[in-house]
């Protein structure tokens, strides 16, 4: 009998596991995949290391900073700042047809850029900043109000609104078109006020730290151990049944599989309402170069681009992908420690919005062909905003919503999960709780915060 069973060895599950084992609980993490990491895992292909998700760790604050999500995560998990070995970004950019806004970590550069490019909006932007400070006290209704509306009340140039929304939606918005105002505040803080960073060794460094700590504390991690059913009696979970039929008993169950996905596992529900499942998924096109991006004149860490004045954040209806907007990340362009040296290869990663249903309906042959076809189109689209790097490509990899679905089991391969979040993490069963993406916090730091707070709130109280 375990004190807590955790479904999923992604960031949130591992973080929850550390909290619980630290306080002497018997904990088992059950993961269906053969490796850890979930939406932010890593893999090896043709002799090279790749990260699944990592563009940048958000919420970066320098060593010694005592407030904010990163400091809180480190404290709660008893890590030192140096354990995550985060190097800050060099500088990023939001690029629209005729305007470009650069930003770095902290608000300074962004404010200067707004002053230079939107001089009439300087005061309005300050007013927005003042409003943002209040986000801690938002109630659920205020949280779920429209970010676009709040922005329209403060900023009078529609182009600036679109440019501010673009990176924030890209890095954490589960809804189409508009964004919850509360989520907007969280993302604004984590990207513009705090900032972007990356460990030299990539996401594996963070994951290996998490899993090592969990094991040292006596936690058990079982890979290739999918949960196929959550068994309940009288409104309480009694245990879970694994894909191979094994039964595992636990006093509490914490699931990071997603809200709808978790309900579907419950033996007491036959008809799951899946209107809340997330829709937004991506294709990720990774290009390995024969040189550093800097040698081609590209020194930005991340470029968020959009090719019209209006930013479109929605699942493409008729096409496999929507490449009017995208994110271009160059892992080489972080300010790594001199002692780290250089990454083994130059890399450019481009993320584009994609339609899961369309990708998963393709026959095997067509699927491979479409991947090639869309890879070329994505490159064509991206090189309008960064120097043309295509002659320098020596290897590529591309994954689609279908891939994401296959390895994380999230409906639609949705990256930011359900549209409506379950902030208190509770379910219809008294001792079954949700953590991770669908509880409300997304991204690497967000999902770790989620695992910690749900473990604290529901599993550590006596």
């Amino acid at each position, binding site marked *: 009998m375990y004190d807590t069973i955790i479904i999923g060895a992604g960031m949130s599950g591992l973080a929850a596991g550390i909290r619980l084992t630290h*306080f*002497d609980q018997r904990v088992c993490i059950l993961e269906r995949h053969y490796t850890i990491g979930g939406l932010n895992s890593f893999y090896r292909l043709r002799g090279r290391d790749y990260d699944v998700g990592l563009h940048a760790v958000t919420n970066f604050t320098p060593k010694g900073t*005592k407030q904010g999500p990163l400091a*809180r995560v480190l*404290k*709660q998990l*008893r890590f030192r*700042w140096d354990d995550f070995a985060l190097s800050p970004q060099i500088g990023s950019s939001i690029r629209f047809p005729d305007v470009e806004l650069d930003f770095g970590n902290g608000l300074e550069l962004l404010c200067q850029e707004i002053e230079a490019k939107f001089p009439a909006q300087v005061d309005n932007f300050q007013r927005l900043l003042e409003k943002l400070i209040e986000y801690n006290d938002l109630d659920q209704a205020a949280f779920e109000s429209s970010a676009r509306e709040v922005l329209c009340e403060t900023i009078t140039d529609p182009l600036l609104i679109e440019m501010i929304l673009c990176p924030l939606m890209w890095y954490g918005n589960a809804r189409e078109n508009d964004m919850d105002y509360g989520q907007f505040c969280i993302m604004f803080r984590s990207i513009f006020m705090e900032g972007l960073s990356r460990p030299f060794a990539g996401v594996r460094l963070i994951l290996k730290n998490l899993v090592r700590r969990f094991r040292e504390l006596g936690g058990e991690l079982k890979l290739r151990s999918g949960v196929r059913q959550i068994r309940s009696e009288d409104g309480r979970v009694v245990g879970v049944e694994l894909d191979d039929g094994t039964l595992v008993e636990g006093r509490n169950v914490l699931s990071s599989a997603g809200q709808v996905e978790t309900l579907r596992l419950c033996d007491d529900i036959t008809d799951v309402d899946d209107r809340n499942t997330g829709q937004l998924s991506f294709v990720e096109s990774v290009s390995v170069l024969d040189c550093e991006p800097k040698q081609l004149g590209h020194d930005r860490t991340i470029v968020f681009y959009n090719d019209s004045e209006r930013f479109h954040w929605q699942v493409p209806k008729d096409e496999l992908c929507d490449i009017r907007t995208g994110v271009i990340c160059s892992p080489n362009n972080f300010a790594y420690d001199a002692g780290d040296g250089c990454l083994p290869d130059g890399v450019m990663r481009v993320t584009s919005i994609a339609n899961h249903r369309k990708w998963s309906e393709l026959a095997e042959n067509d699927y491979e062909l479409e991947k090639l076809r869309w890879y070329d189109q994505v490159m064509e689209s991206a090189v309008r905003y960064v120097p043309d790097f295509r002659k320098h490509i020596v290897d590529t990899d591309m994954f689609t919503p279908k891939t994401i679905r296959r390895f994380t089991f999230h409906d639609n391969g949705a990256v930011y999960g359900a549209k409506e979040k379950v902030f208190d993490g509770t379910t219809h069963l008294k001792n079954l709780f949700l953590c991770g993406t669908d509880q409300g916090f997304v991204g690497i730091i967000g999902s770790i915060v989620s695992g910690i707070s749900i473990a*604290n709130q529901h599993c*550590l109280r006596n």
Partner: protein
Amino acid sequence: MTPAEIRNEILDILEDIAPDEDLSGLKDEVAFRDQLELDSMDFLDIVMELRKRHRVQIPEESYGELASMQSTVTYLEPLMKDLQKA
């Protein structure tokens, strides 16, 4: 445990909770909150660490007693005086 030992134990817990904090200049009579940037989650952790390490149960209504080093040691003394230092 003597008050001095309890104090050391609290320092040890603080070091564990906030390994990047410099605790050498900690003033016993000043609130932790004013010198250490501890939030409510951290205070809960002090309570949980005491429970984990010494089986000392602190009821929620007494959390206020843990405001500064001085008040914490005073509050814990009767609860911990019979414990042996590990």
